[in-house]
């Protein structure tokens, strides 16, 4: 069928019905697709399947969810837009990209809501369900007409698709099937391997009956057929050959699998978006590894159970998001004080308070590092990619055990729901924690036998003969005994703190992307923004701007060598998804300006005048936006 290949062209407007004519094939190095529906109509399943199949075919892919804040928002409202956005590419994709090129929408209202926030490229192609045009309800017909008129002012190519009518030829309730019809449309347009699509459908509906599977396949085939008979274009995003075994999953699945691969055997949690699905994935499989997901009565109990399990056996973990992290603070302090290993996962969402439960933000950094009363040294790590979500759990567990310290892992809503292929991890025995040591404790060894240089000590676990001792959150000495000795307060505080310095010495300075030798501008990021930052830097460098970036995966302790790296750049600026005052806003001065959280940390620890650019729009950063930021911030005369 593929006859014409037009390189890198937009999909030019043409007649919608082209029966008989061969479609024009547009060859693109990348394309971004969006599937939009009311919540409950399954656009997300369609999008996930499309993203996964694309990844399996060797495309770089990044999928994000478009999530309404309510479970059942009113139908056909802009607020109800639910779906997926998938960026596929011939190369590896590290972020969600910029604007959408092709949209499939189940009604015009969800479409309008995305149009209004500028989500679509100027020349986007829109496939929209047209049942609303002839709906029996006059208000709906009117709404359709007005929305379509509004969309007509843009330069999109809008193609009306009789989805409902088509689906009703196969199923009784089209509402439950349109998503697979839509998947059929996409499968044809992007020439997806139908065998893989069917496999994916089988996997998606593995818990459902054979009839459900058959119905979905029939809908898929129908979508493919309709598209092949009615569309005059196809899009080809050539797949890059994948040289190694790859897996594809979202960040929360990766955190769950990484948790298992670290050897931990207990995860205690209380449901909270966007962290909950980590425990869903765990609950599916953890028991076969001898692991328990304990849904506690609240977040305080959850961390308490994890600490109890860690104390008595193997390092355990707890999973939460911002509001839950707030509740856990007292127990985190205890874990630091009694030096029990513990991993705390915070999948950040928008804050403060209940904030933006489903949206991305990086606002828990300072709470993570400093959020507990008293001096509470602990380790804070942030994965930057889905792949790192997997490996960070192993690193976190190993550090927690080796340093007897709580380790906080800061993921976020962008990683949680983003789906990306990455090299398949090859599980190694040393990833898994060994069974609890049950050997007798040699005479003379003390439960907090701090090495005076490093602060490190060996913990005793119940069951070890001769190791009986009390752990207490009260100030204690090397024997774990309450102490009223002032020198011991100072000494034990130093010992708990020293461990971070020892850990820092084992870390590498962060890699500089761009010019390690320095230049005009250095962007510093952390967490999920890495892909967007690096893409923007690459593009700006292509324009001749002297800009580089570096990305921190350790936030406490900070990686070494920062001061030296910063000294090579004229300007250093963090890029973060959290709030900072606009320096030009009323009342804001150099002294009272509240800055991005990483810039606050970096200024304090390096004494370098680290500026920041931050936004809290509830969405991941876009490379194109960052290119503008770079242009505006490269110091005058900064072209290379």
């Amino acid at each position: 069928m593929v006859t014409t290949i037009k390189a890198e062209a937009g999909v030019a407007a043409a007649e919608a019905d082209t029966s008989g004519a061969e479609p024009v094939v547009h060859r693109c190095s990348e394309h971004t697709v969006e599937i939009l529906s009311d919540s409950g109509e399954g656009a997300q399943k369609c999008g996930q399947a499309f993203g996964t199949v694309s990844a399996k075919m060797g495309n770089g892919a990044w999928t994000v969810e478009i999530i309404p804040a309510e479970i059942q928002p009113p139908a056909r409202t802009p607020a109800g837009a639910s779906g997926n956005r998938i960026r596929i590419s011939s190369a590896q994709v590290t972020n969600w990209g910029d604007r959408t090129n092709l949209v499939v929408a189940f009604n015009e209202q969800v479409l309008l809501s995305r149009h209004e926030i500028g989500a679509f490229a100027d020349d986007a192609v829109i496939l929209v369900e047209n049942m609303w045009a002839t709906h029996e309800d006059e208000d709906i017909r009117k709404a359709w007409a007005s929305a379509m008129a509004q969309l007509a002012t843009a330069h999109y190519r809008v193609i009306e698709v009789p989805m409902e009518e088509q689906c009703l030829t196969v199923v009784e309730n089209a509402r439950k099937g349109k998503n697979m019809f839509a998947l059929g449309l996409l499968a044809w347009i992007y020439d997806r391997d139908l065998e893989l699509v069917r496999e994916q459908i089988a996997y998606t509906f593995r818990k459902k009956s054979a009839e459900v599977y058959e119905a979905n396949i029939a809908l898929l085939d129908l979508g493919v057929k309709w598209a092949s008979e009615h569309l005059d274009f196809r899009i080809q995003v050539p797949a890059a050959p994948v040289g190694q075994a790859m897996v594809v999953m979202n960040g929360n699945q990766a955190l769950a699998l990484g948790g298992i691969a670290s050897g931990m055997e207990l995860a205690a949690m209380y449901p909270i978006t966007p962290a909950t699905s980590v425990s869903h994935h765990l609950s599916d499989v953890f028991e076969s590894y001898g692991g328990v997901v304990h849904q506690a009565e609240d977040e305080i109990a959850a961390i308490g159970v994890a600490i109890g399990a860690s104390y008595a056996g193997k390092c355990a973990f707890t999973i939460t998001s911002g509001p839950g992290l707030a509740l856990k603070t007292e127990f985190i302090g205890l874990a630091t004080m009694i030096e029990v290993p513990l991993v705390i996962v915070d999948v950040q969402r928008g804050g403060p308070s209940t904030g933006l439960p489903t949206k991305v933000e990086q606002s828990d950094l300072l709470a993570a590092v400093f959020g507990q009363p008293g001096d509470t040294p602990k380790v804070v790590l942030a994965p930057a990619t889905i792949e790192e979500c997997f490996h960070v759990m192993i690193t976190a567990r190993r550090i927690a055990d080796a340093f007897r310290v709580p380790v906080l892992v800061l993921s976020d809503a962008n990683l949680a729901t983003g789906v990306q292929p990455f090299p398949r991890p090859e599980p190694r025995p040393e990833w898994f924690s060994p069974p609890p040591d049950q050997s007798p404790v040699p005479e003379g060894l003390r439960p907090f036998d701090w090495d005076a240089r490093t602060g490190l000590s060996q913990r005793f676990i119940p069951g070890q003969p001769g190791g009986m001792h009390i752990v207490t959150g009260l100030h204690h000495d090397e024997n774990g005994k309450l102490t009223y000795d002032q020198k011991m307060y100072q000494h034990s505080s130093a010992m708990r703190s020293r461990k971070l310095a020892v850990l820092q010495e084992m870390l590498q300075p962060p890699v500089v992307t761009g010019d390690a030798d320095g230049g005009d501008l250095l962007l510093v990021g952390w967490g999920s923004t890495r892909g967007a930052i690096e893409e923007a830097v690459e593009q700006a460098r292509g324009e001749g701007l002297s800009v580089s970036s570096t990305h921190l995966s350790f936030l406490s302790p900070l990686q070494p060598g920062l001061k030296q790296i910063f000294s090579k750049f004229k300007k250093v600026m963090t890029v973060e998804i959290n709030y900072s005052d606009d320096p030009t806003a009323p009342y804001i001065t150099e002294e009272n300006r509240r800055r991005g959280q990483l810039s606050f940390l970096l200024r304090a620890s390096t004494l370098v005048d680290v500026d920041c650019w931050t936004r809290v729009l509830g969405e991941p950063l876009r490379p194109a936006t960052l290119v503008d930021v770079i242009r505006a911030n490269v110091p005058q005369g900064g072209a290379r």
Partner: protein
Amino acid sequence: MSAGCSLLWTGAEEDDRVFDLHDWEGAEPRWCPGCGDLSVLTAMQRLAVAEQFVPETTVFVSGIGCSSRFPHYMKAYGFHGIHGRALPVATGVKLSRPELTVFVAMGDGDCTSIGAAHWLHMIRYNIDVTALLMDNNIYGLTKKQSSPTTPQGFASNTAPRGSWLPALDPIQATLGVTNASFVAQTAEWVPAHLYATLRAAYHHKGFSFVRILQRCPQYTDSIYKEAVRKPSIVELLVHENGLTVPELDRLYTNQRRHDPRDLDEARRLAEASDVIRLGIFFQDESRPRYDLIRALPQRTVEEKIRLMNEELDRYAV
């Protein structure tokens, strides 16, 4: 150092050690003279010897309060945690190490106020842990503030003109929670009863909740004075399915036969009355136990790697 030895200690098999009272003496108790917590400690140490608990496989978990100092005074593994949160910690201990014997010591503020949510849920989880609520009807450690169990009208530093509301009754509350499996009340000034109750609680498989009426000569001296002097205002609940303490028969003549399998009757008896009832209100070992339900066979690293590889294949591109 013991690091690196990953073999499970199997000492129990050829263990010919005998532990006496001395083996159970931890740090020197720092409670006020005459504090009822001391009687509880003594009873627990006696029980440890009588039942030959193994020190390294026994864990005492507590919160914060005078009573929560308990673990320091037993020479076992001890976890003196944070206020109100002993039960979640004990849950974690027991879920990860079911073979350990776990006791929890709590005060009335600890258990029935700040830790109330955990208390309620622990009753429902019915995990095999023995919990001692040392109820002195006051916040002791923080110096005489009202607790939920402070009698109405009793003056404290936060209610100097008397506590405003009727006291919360921990026995009534516990009996009201679905899946309660062992609910008993005892008094530390009746050592034989205290000991017999702790013993029964220890042997019970499931969550054993023991409210111990505890004198605090420092702040609530008057509350149990009469009961200590007049055994007649105490009623012992006795039954062959529950407790009988023959050595108390002469002094405590006010006795009632109560079959602890009878929950309705237990609830009636728990309602406020003129007498103080000591004994097992309710016991049922057939209730579902979360720790057993969630117990899983251990996997070796090799098995886990095999499973993980299968799992990763499901995500394979």
